[in-house]
């Protein structure tokens, strides 16, 4: 299983000016997206609004810290700030760059115990939202076959249109189409197709530049199949914080979001 970067994926990345003069391929574009610098570590407040097909909304506020070390191991710590009855519930995950399953722990303050939870399938829903674990990370480009379909203008920016076909078939999508801003290497829109129908669609509403790193602070995933959608907005984003090395441990999980 490819390393999961639950937050890493949210921060689609920085400008690395294209040096290629030769026509670029779909593969190269996706590799550039994958290779963006995401900073050393990141801290942010996340608001997740999950809307079901009846228009009812569940709101969750989460504070999260993430860090990727030199070996490509990504560690992430999240705490729920609201709703009140789950406040301080903590979630710790460690993803490995190789095929190892992620390690995940959860801390339930009312139970006062840290529990390990089983690794999830990449295509399973992330916290009951319309995002999958796969969406929350950056998918390794070698999992798909990419084709550059052409370019188009979105909001005054020239974008590559890249079609990706998974090498290993899954039940969630058999084709994705991503719109990637030329020379910036972040996506503005992604369509998930299955059996000829667009089942899900990710739309980026806004970005901001923090310490020179582009951060998507508002995005919506619509599930056309189920009529549901999830919006994730981010605030108070900071990079390269001075983190305690012991922060990604079960001790911190029990302590709550005090760092």
């Amino acid at each position: 299983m490819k390393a999961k970067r639950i937050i890493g994926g949210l921060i689609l990345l920085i400008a690395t000016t294209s040096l290629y003069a030769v026509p670029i391929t779909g593969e190269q574009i996706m590799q550039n997206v994958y290779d963006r610098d995401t900073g050393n570590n990141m801290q942010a407040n996340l608001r997740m609004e999950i809307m079901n097909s009846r228009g009812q909304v569940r709101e969750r506020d989460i504070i999260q810290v993430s860090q990727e070390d030199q070996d490509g191991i990504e560690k992430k710590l999240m705490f729920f700030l609201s709703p009140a009855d789950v406040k301080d519930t903590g979630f710790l995950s460690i993803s490995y760059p190789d095929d190892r399953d992620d390690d995940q722990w959860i801390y339930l303050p009312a139970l006062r115990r840290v529990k390990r939870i089983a690794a999830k399938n990449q295509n399973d829903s992330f916290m009951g939202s319309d995002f999958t674990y796969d969406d929350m990370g950056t998918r390794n480009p070698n999992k798909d076959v990419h084709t550059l379909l052409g370019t188009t203008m979105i909001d005054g920016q020239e974008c590559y249109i890249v079609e990706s076909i998974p090498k290993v078939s899954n039940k969630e999508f058999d084709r994705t189409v991503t719109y990637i801003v030329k020379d910036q290497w972040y996506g503005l829109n992604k369509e998930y197709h299955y059996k000829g129908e667009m089942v899900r669609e990710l739309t980026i509403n806004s970005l901001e530049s923090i310490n020179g790193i582009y951060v998507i602070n508002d995005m919506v995933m619509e599930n056309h199949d189920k009529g549901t959608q999830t919006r994730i907005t981010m605030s108070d984003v900071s990079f390269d914080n001075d983190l305690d090395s012991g922060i990604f441990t079960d001790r911190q999980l029990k302590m709550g979001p005090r760092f």
Partner: protein
Amino acid sequence: MKRITQRPLPVLLAILLISILFVLQIADNAQLETDLDEYMPSEHPAFVASDAASEEFGITDSIMIAIEHPESIYNVGTFDKIRELSEQLPEVFEELLDEDITSLYHADNITGSEWGLEVGPFFEETPESQEEFDLLREQVASNEMVYGSVVSLDETSTIIVFPLDEEADTKTLEKELTEYISRYEGPENIYVAGRPIVEGALASLGPADMARMFPIVMITMIILLYILLRSIRHTILNMVIVLLGTIAAFGTMAMFKIPVYSVDTMIPVMLIAIGVAYGIHMHNTIMYLVRKNSLITKDQLINETLSQMTRPVVMAAITTAIGFSALMTSQVLPVRYFGLFSSIGVLSEMLFALLLFPLSIRLLGVPKTGRKREDEDLELPVQGKIKDHRWTVYIMNKGKLITLIAVIVAVLGGVGATKIWIDTSFLANFEEDHPISVTDRFVNETFAGTSSINIILSGEQPDTFKTPEALSLMAEMQDAFVEDPMIGGAFSLTDFIKRMNFVLNEEQDEYFSIPDNQELIAQYLLLYDMSGDPETIAKVVDYDYQKTNMTLQLKSDSSSLIEKIIAQVATYEEDFGDLGITITYAGSGYTSFIFADLLMEGQVLSLGISFLIVAVLLTLVFKSMFIGIAGTTPIAITATVNFGVMGLLGIPLSSATALISSIAIGIGVDYAIHLIEHYMNRRNEGFSISETVNETISHTGKAIIFNAIAVMGGFIVLTFSVFPPNRQVGSLIALNMVLSALGTLSVLLVTLVHLDKKHRLPIKTAAANKE
């Protein structure tokens, strides 16, 4: 009318043309409505609540595929089949939804290991080694959420449950699915069960059986008619009247693009009974006139027949039609249409009876009286000369006894009627050894049950169903339910909470409970959201935790079980009320139950209105309130006894059997009008009471008895049907015919005599004093 009969060919041509037009309409526009939902009054609050909850929680009817292995399901072959069926069936059959399938392959297994919590399917790949199978077996046996419901306790069977698309055509699905599944047989037995399957089998079996039986019914009736009437011409005319009347009813129905509902199969039944009555009365009068005057000319015969018969036939038809239109007060749409189109059919039959008999005389001449029969003299009303019928003696002398017997019968009927029950069970319609019944029994014995009802609890505010109080009360009610041997299982939010609490507390038994801590419950739910499939939880609780859905699996689809459950829930109503929680229900079993209740209510109401209308019309027609009441009495007795017999024999009320009581009205009105009319005419002609009774019995009485025998004889054939509901219909029609005939010839006649003696009948004074 008389002038019309002088130009027979154009009239016949016109009738033929109109009928052909109707037949073309039927061929073009008629469509059968088999979807039961179309019967339901969708604006009724119970249906509105059920529909809303069904949409919210994804409550659908389900198809169950049970796989039974002679030894144990834990082997490669069976597991491959579980996986293949789970994956392929929704692809082959679009009606089977791909989501929310329950099977070992799909069910979420919430497990705790020494290090934490895991939620996932029991298997994704078929296990390869015995060890893997053993491990899986242990997991299943230790998970109360599947053990006994997805896998049988003896481990020889497992089940796959597919939610069904609402729009699915159950009739074709039942056939195709059963055929498709058969290729997976061996060594396993594969069963297809579930309410839609039973419904589908029912939708094809009932009409198929009726189609097979109906020709036999008609042939029997034709033979009986010929034996009774001894006239090929009049037998044919009788059947033509019935046929044309039926064509007119269904033709207008098709013209207005109103679909044919299954209760409409009762329209021809009604039209046969009534059409044959009209025909026999016409026949009787014609033959009577011919015998009285063997030299009678065509014109005289036509004139005489019409002047004697137009009034009673028209009155009978109009009264019946207006009586039927009372059914239009029903809340149930098909019943309303039944009333309307039966009325149209009856009026058409009236017209055809009054047209075709005279036309046949015009075209074919005066009918021959045939061989003289012994009793023939009796039909000639020669004053003072005729010997009294034995029945006349009874009527004249045993009036009190007859009244007493009638009262006893009516009271018994009334008592029986209180025992009447509504059954919406589809399954009750099949013989015990029918494959549908066998499968259903197997699945009900092995698993939680093939039927279900959903109890919907709604709180006043969000997060109600995160509170320990609400959840504990739910768990308490749920525990009480599963004590009932007819309730195979119950499933709700509490199961998730209890299981999570158990698993996260090292599987210690005392933690298999609702924790007394709202935050912990909320955190469990969040944890499940993060680890499991959020759609599973969405089936038991809404987004705001304000509304929850408890599913009870039932081992019977009988209405009495649903009634019992509703009564049991009612005992918790107060406790839930204290927490601000209200209770409603959902699911097709429940809506059928409510529908049946409405049907019954509407039926009783519209029957009551029919009685009133008939009584008023009889009063107006005969200008006597006493006659109005007397004429309605046999009808009321017949209807009461009809319901009484149903109650005593345990024949449940259904949309078909409920309408049979309308026969009591249709036929009862006809009998009463002819009898009263004849009685009054004879009395006014100067006959004494006993002479009148005697003459009425031999003339109208004969027609009534002939009609009853022919119709009853025909429909009694249905009791040989292989389909129990058709048997019930057959015997109830026979019963109604007998009761109507007997009631008219005894109770009505005795009442008339009694009123007559008391000078309460509007009879000219000269005749009135003659005893």
